[in-house]
């Protein structure tokens, strides 16, 4: 993913809204918080890397509950997200924020003990390069936890909104927006990483969790996919939004409007070669 990617541009444009209460309380905010609570920094970790660190929320929380001698590094392609992250970590000397992405990390080879990422890997545009880059930066005994959305994510919304987006965007833009994401099945993710790492060191688990929210609540995270509509004229966008809102309201049930997150969790645990340490 390069900096000219419409998704990166959109995240940059919306950076100041990213930590709005509505977004943090949304299904994505809640799911990310749950994942963050599951991450474990080990006693001998020296360098911890968050790829697609956004506004630095996860990094600052992890750093606050870890030893101060651990170096935390965040990589983020969207410039304004990095600015927000830098503001957040201003008083934390052991956290640094760098420009970059999965495919191109400004990090020394074999320097990272623990690499994690929360809901960013599905934006990767060159999967093989990204996996090789992960391999490059990891120490021989490094660990990885990647959480990203899977192929069957948000099917309730997709069924309702795809005909509307196709109508307003036209086939070329509609399909172009689909190509911006790499939503893998569990099997595809396993195959992808097993091509570069020892398959015995790779595991992928998947989960489906349905979150209920109001229309306003779901709309709060719509910012995350706005990159797909960057090229839509404003007046078309308004009409499209209106139809989407109406369609999503149709999903409303007693508990609210459902959205099912299909989450893949890829875990890598490397073991040092006994001859090279």
């Amino acid at each position: 993913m390069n900096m000219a990617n419409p998704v990166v541009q959109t995240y940059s444009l919306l950076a100041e809204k990213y930590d709005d209460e509505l977004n943090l309380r949304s299904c994505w905010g809640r799911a990310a918080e749950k994942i963050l609570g599951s991450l474990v920094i080990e006693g001998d970790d020296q360098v911890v890397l968050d790829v697609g660190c956004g506004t630095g929320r996860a990094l600052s929380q992890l750093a606050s509950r870890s030893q101060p001698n651990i170096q935390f590094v965040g990589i983020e392609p969207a410039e304004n997200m990095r600015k927000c992250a830098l503001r957040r970590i201003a008083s934390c000397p052991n956290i640094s924020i760098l420009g970059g992405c999965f495919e191109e990390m400004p990090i020394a080879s074999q320097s990272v003990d623990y690499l994690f990422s929360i809901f960013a890997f599905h934006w990767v545009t060159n999967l093989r390069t990204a996996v090789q880059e992960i391999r490059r930066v990891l120490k021989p005994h490094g660990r990885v936890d990647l959480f990203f959305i899977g192929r069957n994510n948000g099917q309730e919304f997709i069924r309702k909104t795809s005909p509307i987006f196709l109508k307003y965007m036209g086939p070329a833009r509609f399909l172009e927006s689909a190509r911006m994401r790499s939503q893998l099945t569990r099997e595809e993710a396993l195959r992808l990483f097993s091509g570069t790492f020892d398959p015995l060191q790779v595991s992928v688990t998947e989960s489906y969790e349905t979150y209920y929210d109001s229309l306003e609540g779901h709309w709060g995270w719509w910012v995350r996919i706005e990159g797909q509509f960057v090229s839509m004229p404003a007046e078309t966008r308004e009409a499209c939004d209106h139809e989407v809102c109406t369609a999503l309201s149709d999903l409303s049930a007693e508990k609210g409007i459902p959205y099912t997150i299909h989450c893949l969790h890829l875990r890598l645990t490397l073991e040092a070669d006994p001859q090279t340490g």
Partner: protein
Amino acid sequence: MNRTQEDALIASVLNWIREHKLPGNHHGAEITEDIDLITDGLLDSMGLVDLLLFVEEQTGRPIDLKTVEPKDICVVKNLCRIALGNEISQSAA
């Protein structure tokens, strides 16, 4: 128009859709060449990308998305005609 070629492509595409359709959608109704793949929930945008790749591989020619309407790529019989460079008749559209 080469009907045999078109019928063969339609059959291949319908088989592909049966194998790749979204889980839990379409409620077991018959998948035919007249169904709208997006409106009827058989495929999402990523599925449609994969289907177009499959069709282009079958015909060996690219589909120009800038010149087509949604119904041209979402209805199997229209898609197959376009993919083979055949005209879509009014009745087919």
